[in-house]
């Protein structure tokens, strides 16, 4: 395997990992703070993608500057995350935080099923596509192979910004400190005057928005179609479990491992491409049952 090939495989791997990280980090963030494994995360991903595509198609059809499709991606993600995520937390999750985890999973799973069908009602079953952002950024060439700048530069840059932003927010701001305090011990945090309910609410919206953002950013690169949410939720779980549930930096490392492993597989043994995320997950969990970065006792419930 030559040096060229390795560089090419790394490029593909990083591009893929960035997208997976953006979605998985939302899932793991919500779990870390709320202790809820949110299956409906996949719906936020899909709905983010669908709304971004609809917004983009509308903007282009209405004759606006195609560069406006970029902010449209973010606006779509924030709207889906804030409105849908907010409603879901307020109306459903708030009632079940002290219930068994099995029940929480079932409730979020039910929401996932409902949203899948809502999505089919609104957008139907034909694949959608909106590649303006991808085409606007053009291609970059590496060893004679052209890559889209969107996938090799824009997405990884955004993933790094999100990672550093989350780190800074949690470690260096008052709001972040409140979130960490609630994660550590909800009762004690409430006792010293932190509004735990509000912290949960904000955290859930942030996590849901990250999932929707992942979907919106994936939209220009792929066909948007039924079933994409289920696909992503499985992959996000693999990343979150490999990293250790609740571990944000861990999610970045795990996403990178899975992305690189997958692209190396395409170069060396294409038959294993599909298996890579799960082989890595099983490999890690055998030796570290709480994941790469997970502490054995993650939460006290």
């Amino acid at each position, binding site marked *: 395997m030559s040096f060229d090939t390795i560089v090419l495989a790394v490029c593909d791997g990083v591009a893929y990992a960035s997208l997976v990280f953006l979605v998985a980090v939302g899932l793991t963030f919500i779990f870390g703070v709320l202790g809820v494994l949110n299956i409906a995360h996949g719906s936020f991903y899909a709905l983010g993608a669908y709304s971004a595509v609809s917004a983009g198609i509308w903007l282009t059809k209405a004759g606006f500057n195609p560069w406006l499709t970029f902010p449209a991606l973010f606006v779509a993600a924030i709207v889906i995350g804030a409105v849908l995520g907010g409603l879901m937390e307020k109306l459903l999750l708030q009632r079940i935080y002290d219930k068994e985890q099995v029940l929480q999973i079932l409730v979020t799973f039910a929401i996932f099923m409902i949203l899948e069908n809502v999505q089919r009602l609104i957008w139907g079953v034909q694949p959608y596509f909106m590649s303006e952002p991808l085409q606007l950024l053009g291609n970059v060439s590496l060893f004679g192979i052209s890559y889209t700048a969107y996938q090799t530069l824009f997405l990884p840059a955004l993933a790094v910004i999100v990672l550093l932003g989350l780190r800074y927010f949690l470690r260096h701001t008052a709001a972040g400190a409140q979130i960490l305090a609630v994660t550590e011990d909800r009762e004690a945090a409430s006792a010293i005057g932190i509004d735990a309910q509000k912290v949960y609410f904000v955290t859930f919206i942030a996590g849901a928005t990250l999932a929707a953002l992942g979907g919106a950013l994936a939209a220009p690169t792929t066909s948007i179609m039924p079933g994409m949410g289920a696909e992503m939720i499985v992959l996000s779980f693999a990343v979150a479990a490999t990293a250790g549930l609740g571990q944000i930096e861990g999610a970045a490392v795990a996403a990178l491992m899975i992305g690189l492993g997958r692209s190396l597989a395409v170069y060396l043994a294409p*038959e294993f491409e599909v298996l890579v995320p799960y082989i890595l997950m099983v490999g890690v969990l055998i030796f570290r049952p709480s994941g790469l970065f997970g502490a054995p006792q993650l939460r006290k419930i």
Partner: protein
Amino acid sequence: MMLRRLAAAAGLSLLGLFPALAQEKPAELRIGITTYASGAASVFGIPARDAAEMFASEINARGGVQGVPVKLYFVDEGAGIETLMTEYRRLVQDQKVDVMFASISSGVCNKIAPLAEDLKVVNFMWDCGTQRILEDDKYNYVFRTQANATPEVMAPLLYLLKVKPDFKTIAVVNQDYAWGRDSWAIFSQALKVLKPDVKVVAEFFPKFGAADFSTEVSRLLALKPDVILSTSWGGDLDTFVRQANQRGLFKSSQFVLPLAESSLERLGNDLPEGVIVGGRGDHYFLHPERIGDAKFRAFMDAFKKKTGAYPIYPVFHMAQAFSALEAVYAKAVAANGGKWPTHDQVAKAMPGLKFQALGRPVEIRTDGQGVEDQLVGTTIRTPKYNFDVLDNMMIFPASQIMPPVGQKSDAWIATLKPDILNIKVDTFKHAD
């Protein structure tokens, strides 16, 4: 008094007798249809269901099949094989459907065929591709109202060998499931026989429903194979084509996309010119031999108006199932002296049946396989449509590109000789 009562009773019973005789014709002809209403394959299932509804109301407006109106019962294939089998059983045993149209997925058909045989219900495999079912086993109630994987893959291969014979390397990117694997097995086996010097430089089978083919595209850009084959369909194919086109892969390789007829309109101008495209039969909304037919045109426009998109091959397949149904009942009624036939009589009338829907006539062989000609073309752009259409079309006679009755596909492919390239095809330019 007594006599009169007797006469009245006799009259009444006589009156009762005639409707009883006439009632041999049922009040309705019940058709069970399995199609994808959910999941990725609903890109085929939903247009097919829309088409089925249009055909049923058109038939009923004409008074029905041999005077019996049809009624449709739909089952979602996407619900999973267990649910589907239960629903299938329920339709046959409780709803007493007269005929089943099942299914789209080859995996489903493999399970449905023996079930139909058990239940003794006439089953039209209206869309599934696998050639194996009727090659490996003999069925009395299972028939294919369309072609199968072997001619559907042979036609694009022969087209490629006819128009671009000078290629040395090939790569494949197929979906990782039965159809993706089987179609490549047929294609690569036939290629090895007909052009043994071609080297296969990469075989990719990305996951079914994969959202990203970037790595495969990078690898193909580096390998620069002369030909890239993909029998993928739906969102997978759309994504692959767009990602490949964005990065210039179409400039370095000749693409062969045997199912892309079903993606033409969605892909718009993201599909470059010069790509070899097939449609699993002679299915094309601008079918060069049918386009002059006012009824053909009227249906294409009506479908576009109803659903917002031109018909794709599953719509043509659904049309064939309905045409076969009308034809077989006409044949069976005639064979039964004008009386309504039993289900067994209908099944017996299937072999040798000829019918025509929206393409060329199709014939059912004695082994239940359908013989359906194959249309392949190359994409071009015209001002009239905002998506690619087909030019340099060839229609391949199906009987010569599939094994004869009693022979299996792989055994037949092994006997192929290069002179199969000389088979007579009809050629057409784009004209519309």
